[in-house]
Each structure stands twice: as C-alpha cells, then as structure tokens.
C-alpha cells in the first residue's frame, strides 16, 4: 500500500509500505477514505515529540471502510463505513471504565501518561496512523462507530478529533451562563472551542491569534470577538481592560507546544531546552480572573516547560486538561450536527491527495494559502 512515512524533522514522503495485518483478535483493518493533518501532527513533523521514529506513518483523524476483521470482532463487518476516534482504547481498564478513554492503560506500553493514539510516535504506543491507504484499528468493537447515513463524511472526519477536542475544551472550562470566555488559538480546535462555548451559555467569547485570516473565520464561523496579539502590545493588559480589570471567567488554551508570541520561549523550544513554548498557557493563566477556570487542550510534550505556576496558584485557578475522550462526546455532538448547531466541515480549506502530503505538511506548517484544516484523500478510495 501507499503510505506517508516520516523521514526526519520537516521531511515526509510517500512510499510503498507493507499492508497492516491483524495483530490481535479484536483488530480491524480499515481502508482509509478521509484522513487529515492535525495541528498536533506538526509537533511530530517539527521533531518535537520524543521517540518519533523514521518510517512511522502519521495520522490520527480518519474515516474509512472496514476491509477485514479479527476473530473476536462482533460489532463490525467488512464493508461498514466507519469513523474512528483518535484514541485507541480498550473500554474496560480502570480509566476507560470511568469514561477517560484518552487515558487508556491497556494500549500504550511506552508511556503510562497517555493512552494509545494512532500515528503519534512511540510515546503514544507506536501505532502507524491513517495517512495511508489502510490502517490497523485495535479494539474495533470499542472505538469505531458506523457513520450515520445522514452525516456528511467530511463532518465525520472532523468529529474524530478536532471538533470534540474543542468541545471538551469548553466543557472543561465549566462555563456558566453569561461567562466571559477567552480562547487562545484560532486553529480548528480553538474555533470549535469558541463555537462550543456559546452552546454552553457563554456571554462573551473572544478568540486570540496572530493570523488574520484565522481570526476572520473566528468571527464568521464562531461569532466571536477577535484580537490579534501582535496589534495590541500586551495582550494580558488588553484583556484586563476589556473585562473592566476583572479578567475572563474561563480561558482555554487551544494552542499548545508551538505557541508564538515570545521569542525567547519559541527559541528555547526549538533548541529543545523545553518541551513546548507555553506562551499561550502563560497568557491564559494571567488573563483569567482570580478563582477562574483554565482549560488546556493544546498538546504539550512530556518534558518540562516554563509555566507561570506561581500565578496559577496564587490566583486560585481551577485547571483542567486532557486529551479528548472522543467517543464520550459523540452522542451529544451528533445531535448538534443533526440540529444544525454545528457544521464541522465548514472549516475544511484544503483536500490533499495522499501522494502530495509532503506539500500539505509544508503548507500547514508555514500557514500558507489561508489554510485552516487540510484533509487527506487516500488513493484507494
């Protein structure tokens, strides 16, 4: 089969690779129809994630058609059209049985700190991902769901990661009616977090970024106020002034490890002196009001980052964070899509053939051509 393989920082190519095989009785092999490039894939692409091995296939957002099932699979059969959460989870361990699917303890031998994730380095279990024609799907009876007949497949692929992650970002903020919510990051996750904040009754939603074209979409897609932090000098001071010196009730960090905005932090990140540039996280800590809520869905690496924890402590913040437990949110998100409250595919800007994925990565990494969400179309479809 054809598959994207990682060749080193900033370098990927498409090669012939062996087909994935059934390794466990509850596996399925899925022929990928739609994949995507995620903002968190860029952390792998940029060489920031430990134990990212040359030859690995990335890609954790996908839909496809079941090609083969293992001997114990009961809920899927060949030919089923499925959407697959980016989490690889067993459904039965301590964490899964409590709804924390992203923290599964039975699928990632390389690190206890996170569950298995498709195509996200060996730190997340060493599974090849779906930027390929076929992918191995463990625990096929647990993770994948059949795509509802009424659902557009591009909406479905956005529901495998970006949309539920943004929704969970807002949910972890424990938004109350009338709250002022500030979202750092106008990428796909930030846009969905902003949109979800309204669903939870926010009274005001402000989105922060430095890319004007993304802030345009934050206004049109998410009905948010926007701020370009390069235009306001001190963003924390500005937000305090905007909130009558109280601060926001809820801040959501939807940026993660490669936040821009402070050259020293960025360079320290690039020199591997810290695991991520926590610029957005620090701004969120400083912009939220005392006693407020900080929700972190931006992804960071396993090493340390220079975070202003003293401010967080002294302000009495409630900090919630996690990778999204995708399937837990599907019933509600399916309702929202069906009711017209959400149309996730509205933010898709590029559809890239698998053979051109190297260009797709460069485009996304360099933020060219007003890219927000690039999908990957596999040839075998």
């Amino acid at each position, binding site marked *: 089969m054809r598959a994207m393989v990682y060749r080193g920082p900033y*370098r990927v190519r498409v090669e012939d690779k062996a087909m994935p095989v059934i390794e466990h009785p509850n596996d399925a092999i899925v022929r990928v129809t739609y994949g995507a490039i995620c903002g968190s894939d860029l952390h792998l692409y940029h060489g920031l994630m430990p134990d990212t091995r040359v*030859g690995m296939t990335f890609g954790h957002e996908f839909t496809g058609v079941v090609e083969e099932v293992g001997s114990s699979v009961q809920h899927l059969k060949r030919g089923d059209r499925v959407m697959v959460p980016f989490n690889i989870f067993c*459904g*039965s361990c301590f964490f899964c049985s409590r709804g924390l699917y992203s923290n599964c303890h039975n699928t990632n031998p*390389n690190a206890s700190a996170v569950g298995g994730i498709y195509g996200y380095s*060996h730190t997340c279990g*060493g599974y090849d991902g779906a930027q390929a024609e076929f992918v191995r799907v463990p625990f096929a009876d647990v993770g994948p769901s059949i795509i509802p007949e009424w659902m557009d497949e591009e909406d479905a692929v956005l529901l495998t990661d970006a949309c539920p992650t943004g929704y969970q970002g807002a949910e972890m903020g424990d938004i109350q009616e009338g709250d002022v919510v500030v979202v750092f990051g106008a990428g796909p996750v930030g846009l969905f977090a902003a949109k979800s904040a309204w669903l939870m009754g926010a009274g005001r939603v402000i989105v922060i970024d430095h890319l004007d074209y993304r802030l345009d979409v934050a206004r049109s897609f998410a009905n948010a106020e926007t701020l370009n932090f390069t*235009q306001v000098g001190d963003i924390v001071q500005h937000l305090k002034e905007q909130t009558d010196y109280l601060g926001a009730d809820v801040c959501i960090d939807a940026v993660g490890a490669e936040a821009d905005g402070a050259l020293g932090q960025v360079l320290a990140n690039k020199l591997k002196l810290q695991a991520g540039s926590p610029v957005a996280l620090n701004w969120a800590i400083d912009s939220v009001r005392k006693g407020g809520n900080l929700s972190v869905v931006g992804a960071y690496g396993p*090493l340390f980052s220079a975070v202003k924890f003293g401010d967080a402590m002294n302000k009495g913040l409630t900090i919630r964070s996690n990778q999204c437990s995708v399937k837990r949110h599907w019933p509600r998100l399916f309702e929202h899509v069906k*009711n017209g409250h959400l149309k996730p595919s509205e933010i898709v800007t590029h559809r890239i053939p698998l053979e051109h994925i190297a260009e797709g990565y460069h485009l996304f990494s360099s933020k060219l051509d007003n890219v927000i969400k690039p999908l990957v179309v596999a040839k075998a479809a």
Partner: protein
Amino acid sequence: MPYTSEKPAIAHDTQQLRQTIPGWGADLDPRTRPAVPKENYVPRKAAGTNGDFPERQVERYEREKSTEHKFLTPVFGTSCPPRGLSGLVRRLAYRRYSEGRSAHWLLLMLADRIDVMESIATAALRGRPDNPVTEMGLLAELKGNAFRSRFGQHRNDWKHVPFDVLMFSGKWFLAGAAIVGISRAVRRSRRRRLFG
C-alpha cells in the same frame, strides 16, 4: 468593577444571544454535558472476551515498555521496531529510566536524531536517497500563495524564521562538510601509505 461585589457588565445580554446564535445555551446545564462528571464508573468486560482483562497480542520481538507499566500492555503498536544504534539508545532509555526522569526523554530525543542520520545513510545505500526538496514539500511554495501569505500580514512567526532556516539548513551543511572532510582525510591517508 472587581472592587465591589457586583460582576461588571462585560458580557452580552443572554436573551439576545439566544436569538442570534444558533444553538446558544443548548448545553447550558452542566449536569447534562457528556463528560460531566469527569469520571463516571461503568464497568465493562474486555472486548472480545467474557473476562476483565483483554486477550494478549502476540509479542513478535522484545517490545520495549515504560518502567511505569507493571507489564507489557495487552495491545501495542508494532511500527518501526528499534534497530541499529538508535535502537540501542531507545532500549536503554526504556530499560533504565522512568518517565519521571529527564534522562528518559533526552535519550529518546538523542535516539531520534541518530535514527535520522542512520536512515539517511541506509536510504542512500539502498538506492532510494532522501530528497530534501520534495520531502519538505517545497513545491507548496509555488502553489500556496506564499508571498501574500507571508507579507502584508500581522504574523508573529517571522521573527524566528532566520533561526528556523539556520537550524534546518545548518545540519545539511554540517553533514556535507563532514562527508567532504572524511573523504579528504581518507584520500590523504591512502596517499601517505602509497608514497610513504
């Protein structure tokens, strides 16, 4: 203002929001949100079994694992088994240091860099050398409105672009310089042996 008990009027009227924003307040009650409470215990049997623990995947090679796992997880990825010098460093990282130790992650980062160099060499020897131009997707510069995307915008990432270019291209120059230096040294040593 926060100097008095009332919350400042810094948000919009919620009645107006309900009328103008589709779905506003649909998840207003936190108790009905899908992941509230955070932990909701519903025990399940392991998939494909009638027991509590999943069937084990066959271990076809010695699979590395974190010391913070009691044993190898029943299901695991099989991409890119450790090999070569990078594989030795990876096995050392997993065998000796827990995830709580910086040495664990720093060794893995070191192994990643060794892996890249090993892979460049082996790909060249196998007749499928790396092509930095295509692998970096530079053709996207011609298709992606590169000029307009970068200039006349308020992007902040321009400040570290020179550093990015230096960091990335520097290692290729260093690699090239190393190859030239080594081949010159080999030729000099041969000449000395031939001619004394």
